[in-house]
């Protein structure tokens, strides 16, 4: 497994005395000095802001006026008074649940196909990975162009076979599926490469044993390959899930939350509340709900991963 244990090496350093001892006294200060930029960064850009965001979520803070403490007012608003909040949560989950199976299954399928020594295999790997290194804004703009209502390529192709295509991005039912499709194609290469690495790590002898036992290809896949790469699968699942909860750019570029509010997702709503109308308090509350979700998922991931790593050893 690529994640070495978090435990540091034991302090067996001081073998010789004298010169090294004198240096060790300084070593402490060097240590603090070396970590200081990151520690300061952590405090200033992560710790204090997260605390500030948390406390802000109990106020009606805004860029435009003084803030007042309003207790759980923002959370109450989100959960009971603002139908858009629940819609937003729903759309986010829709995006996640639509994206994840597609992304993981496609990525795994491709990884299995690529995990063989054949001519041109490298080309396909590179090709499918290319969108990963392409700017999401560019990617979204091009797809928006392809899915344009009347003159977009997609509808022109449909017209060629005699079908009048729908207004893809101006349709409440279709806009989100289009965004999901575009997002899958953008990032499938990432998980594919992770799975490919995992597949290549599966010791050959297992397969050899399976062949001797006369196991079918299908059976080999489900009883050897899948369990062996399950840590990677799980890792990819969680990371993709966390990433999908934070989807923003493709939505902002392709649909701007529309049509109607049919593609409003959590981060888009945060962006709109915090940075367009400057309702910091309410935006912080929504952001904190997002943070809570991410936190739970991260903790689940860490715990389960530890178990798997031990299982492997």
């Amino acid at each position: 497994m690529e994640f070495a244990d978090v435990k540091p090496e034991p302090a067996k350093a001081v073998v010789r005395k004298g010169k090294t001892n004198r240096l060790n006294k300084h070593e402490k200060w060097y240590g603090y000095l070396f970590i200081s930029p990151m520690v300061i960064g952590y405090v200033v850009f992560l710790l204090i802001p997260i605390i500030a965001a948390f406390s802000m979520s109990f106020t009606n803070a805004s860029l435009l006026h003084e803030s007042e403490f309003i207790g759980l007012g923002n959370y109450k608003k989100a959960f009971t008074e603002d139908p858009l909040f629940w819609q937003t949560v729903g759309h986010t989950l829709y995006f996640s649940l639509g994206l994840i199976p597609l992304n993981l299954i496609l990525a795994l399928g491709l990884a299995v196909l690529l995990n063989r020594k054949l001519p041109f295999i490298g080309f396909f790997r590179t090709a499918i990975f290319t969108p990963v290194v392409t700017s999401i804004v560019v990617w979204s703009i091009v797809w928006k162009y392809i899915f344009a209502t009347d003159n977009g390529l997609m509808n022109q192709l449909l017209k060629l076979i005699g079908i009048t295509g729908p207004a893809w991005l101006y349709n409440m039912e279709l806009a989100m599926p289009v965004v999901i499709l575009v997002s899958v194609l953008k990032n499938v290469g990432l998980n594919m490469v992770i799975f490919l690495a995992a597949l290549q790590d599966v010791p050959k002898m297992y397969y050899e044993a399976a062949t001797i036992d006369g196991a079918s290809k299908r059976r080999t896949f489900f009883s050897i390959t899948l369990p062996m790469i399950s840590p990677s699968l799980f890792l990819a699942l969680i990371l993709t899930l966390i990433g999908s909860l934070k989807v923003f750019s493709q939505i902002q570029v392709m649909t701007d939350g529309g049509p109607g509010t049919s593609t409003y997702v959590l981060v888009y709503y945060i962006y709109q509340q915090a940075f367009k109308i400057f309702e910091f308090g309410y935006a912080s509350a929504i952001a904190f709900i997002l943070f809570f979700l991410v936190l739970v998922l991260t903790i689940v991931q860490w715990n389960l991963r530890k178990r798997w790593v031990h299982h492997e050893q």
Partner: protein
Amino acid sequence: MSNKQRAVLRNLPVYMALIAVSVLVLFPFFWMVTTALKEQTKIFLFPPQWLPSPVQWGNFADVFKVQPQFPLYFWNSLYTSVLVTVGTCLFAALAGFAFAKLQFPMRNLIFLVLLTGMMIPTEVTAIPMFNWFTKLQLTDTHFPLIVPPMLGAGGMFGVFLLRQFFIAVPSELDEAAKIDGCSPWTTFWRIMFPLAGPSLATLAIFTFLHSWDNYFDPLIYISSDRLFTLPVGLKLFTDTAGTEWQLLMAASVIATLPLLIVFFFAQKRFIEGVALTGLK
């Protein structure tokens, strides 16, 4: 029939599937380039024109005419991304080295605390930071695009990655350096930092990609168009150039090409880097 051909034929279904997906994934690039080279009147021809004719190289020049700030956006993206990358690599390596190789009280505790930073979404911290940066008159500068990403969640990931690397370096090496009278700084700078090349390259690639692709931060922080980075500049271009898709696509090509070139030359590093870290 050569071996190669035979191998291809035997695995025809595999190739068909791979070709299908590759076409789907590469098509946007093809369409982007084709459109970028078309005359405006040919963009929405029906049936669609697959290859530009006549080829309009002038569209690329027109991008700079319609949007004279475009080179500036490019420069802003480039220099902020480079600064973030260099800073992240340096500070992450320093901290990673210290956590792996130096002895000091509370070392592991501090490290674990820093790790928690990796899961803090920037969308959450952005709200108070935006408020402060506004009060400090740092909005509409590049400061928020450079320093917080360098020392924030991305930085913490770098610390994690490089500490993993330095732990794997045999301790005989730094022991020997110590005995020879190297200060921790010299040990780091002369021995450890050069050794970390591959890990640093991975970190650098990710940080650069991430920064180059950063849309959220410039969107909220930058007001004046001379300070825009490419993603925001391109989005703006979609608003102002409206239906002149050939220019928009030409601009997209210009924005995409450098990174793609780097990718094709260093693709092994890219792909191995992803596989190695399983991140993002």
